[in-house]
């Protein structure tokens, strides 16, 4: 019963320090990471390479133990085998037994997931169809392309019809068609009330399908929230193009605005808020010049992301 109220994923003050190399150099991969993901959410875990996404996911799967802190998945420890019956996992750049065919591998996966014998065949067929690997179903996976392996990886992650699907860089290696198909699969999972947690460093993946995102930089979760919340926190900017200005007014405008670029008799201005827009309009009117374009520019996730990274680097 408690799983109904408890989040599907919960971490409290999660830290992970690796010691590696000859001198056991310490690498702090995760620092006090606190995150709750609720049932039915599609959550995007976004961060640059080396931010700690894979480390976090490995802890969720129980492949790695945290150095300190707490982690609960579906209300239990990730090392609990019972929990795994309800989880599907796609590792980053997956690799499978190359001497097996996709069909054999999915049979093995189904068997290990405890799917009753009589249902296995149907399930495997369904999955091969879902990821469009029917044609290669009986060829050994030796020499499969990255995209093909990725598809098999997605199929095996869904073999047990999991409540929670955890995908590490699921778009990796997929062509645009494959990415679209995967987005559809994820949306399909969401419609069926499944929780999807995936990591990515490609922002457009997130903007299209996530309910909520978490941004992780250098092992720290710098923000979580709905995309609309994260993005409107930031002030929007407006790009104004002015034509037919005389020198005097141009100098005035250049002084009042944030950024200005001259090109022929046009002047491109970037201002930060409505007040500034008003001021520019007043000056333009006075100068009897013309505004040829006025484009409000919403902050994109990328802008936000870049700003956070710059902030982190300054620290």
């Amino acid at each position, binding site marked *: 019963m408690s799983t109904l109220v408890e989040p599907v994923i919960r971490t409290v003050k999660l830290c992970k320090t690796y010691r590696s190399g000859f001198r056991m150099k310490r690498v702090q991969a995760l620092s006090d990471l606190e995150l709750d993901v609720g049932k039915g959410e599609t959550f995007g875990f976004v961060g640059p390479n080396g931010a700690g996404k894979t480390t976090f996911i*490995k802890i969720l*799967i*129980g*492949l*790695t*133990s945290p150095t300190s802190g707490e982690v609960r998945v579906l209300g239990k420890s990730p090392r609990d*085998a*019972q929990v*795994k*019956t309800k*989880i599907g*996992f796609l*590792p980053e750049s*997956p*690799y*499978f*037994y190359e*001497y*097996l065919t996709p069909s*054999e591998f999915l049979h*093995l*996966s189904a*068997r*290990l*997931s*405890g799917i009753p014998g009589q249902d296995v065949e149907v399930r495997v067929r369904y999955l091969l169809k879902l990821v469009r690997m029917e044609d290669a179903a009986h060829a050994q996976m030796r020499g499969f392309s990255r995209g093909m392996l990725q598809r098999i*990886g997605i199929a*095996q992650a869904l073999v*047990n019809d999991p409540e929670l699907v955890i995908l590490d860089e699921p778009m990796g290696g997929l062509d645009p068609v494959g990415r679209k198909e995967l987005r559809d699969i994820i949306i399909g999972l969401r419609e069926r009330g499944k929780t999807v947690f995936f990591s990515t460093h490609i922002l457009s993946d997130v903007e299209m399908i996530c309910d909520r995102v978490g941004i992780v930089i250098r092992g720290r979760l710098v923000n979580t929230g709905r995309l609309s919340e994260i993005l409107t926190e930031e002030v929007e900017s407006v790009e104004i193009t002015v034509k037919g200005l005389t020198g005097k007014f141009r100098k005035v405008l250049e002084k009042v605005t944030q950024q200005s670029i001259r090109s022929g008799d046009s002047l491109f201005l970037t201002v930060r808020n409505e007040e500034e827009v008003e001021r520019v309009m007043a000056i333009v009117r006075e100068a009897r010049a013309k505004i040829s374009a006025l484009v409000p520019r919403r902050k994109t996730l990328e802008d936000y992301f870049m700003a956070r990274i710059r902030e982190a680097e300054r620290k």
Partner: protein
Amino acid sequence: MFGRISGIARNTFREAIRDKVLLILLVFAIVVMGSAKVIQPLALGEESKVIKDLGLGAITFFCVLIAVLVGGRLVYKEMEKRTIYIMLAKPVRRWEFILGKYLGLMAVLFVSMLIMTAGFYIILLVSGIPASAYLLWSLLMTAFELAILTAVAILFSSFVPPIASAVFTFAVYFIGHLTRDLRLLAAMSPSAVVKGISEFLYYVLPNLSNFNIKGEVVHDVLLNPQALALSALYALVYTATLLLISVAIFRRKDF
């Protein structure tokens, strides 16, 4: 639980039989056994003993080679290729994984031994040597020895790369056949360090020479059933202990 263990065991078996290494070793073993026939200038009675001795020796040797070469990369390869991420993300407990791998390799060894033994008996028949079933006792003891050796290979394979693992496992096999000498060394050496080390090795390493009864079966010497039963029991206990240690290491592992 049994479904998962047998699933992993079957997969391990499938991996091995689709690997060329196994096929090459099997062909080679049969060729070696047959080659005894070519060594002609021996008296008739001698010849039969040489062929039997060589045949049993070849079966043991090649089974050991399979255990060491295939076993040595069994677990490590899964970590290196990261297939283990997928396995452990399924409801597979870590001990089930190790046990499945172990049983899979034992199945490979069993089938290999069966094939080599069939080849051996065919060679005996072709050579007109009476093929007594008495020889099988020696192979049974080899099977127990392989049970230990495979567990050694798995233990090493769960934390060192394949080549190192193969070398270590071979070393255990080699020294395991010299344990009596180790004890002798411990008794006779004046140096306390040498004494200590050889005594330590004597107690820690498996005593494998008890499993070698080739001389007895080839020369039709009567076997001591109690001694054989004791060796078998020893093999089971030793193997179980090694597997428990492997599991303990494996459970603490971060991937």
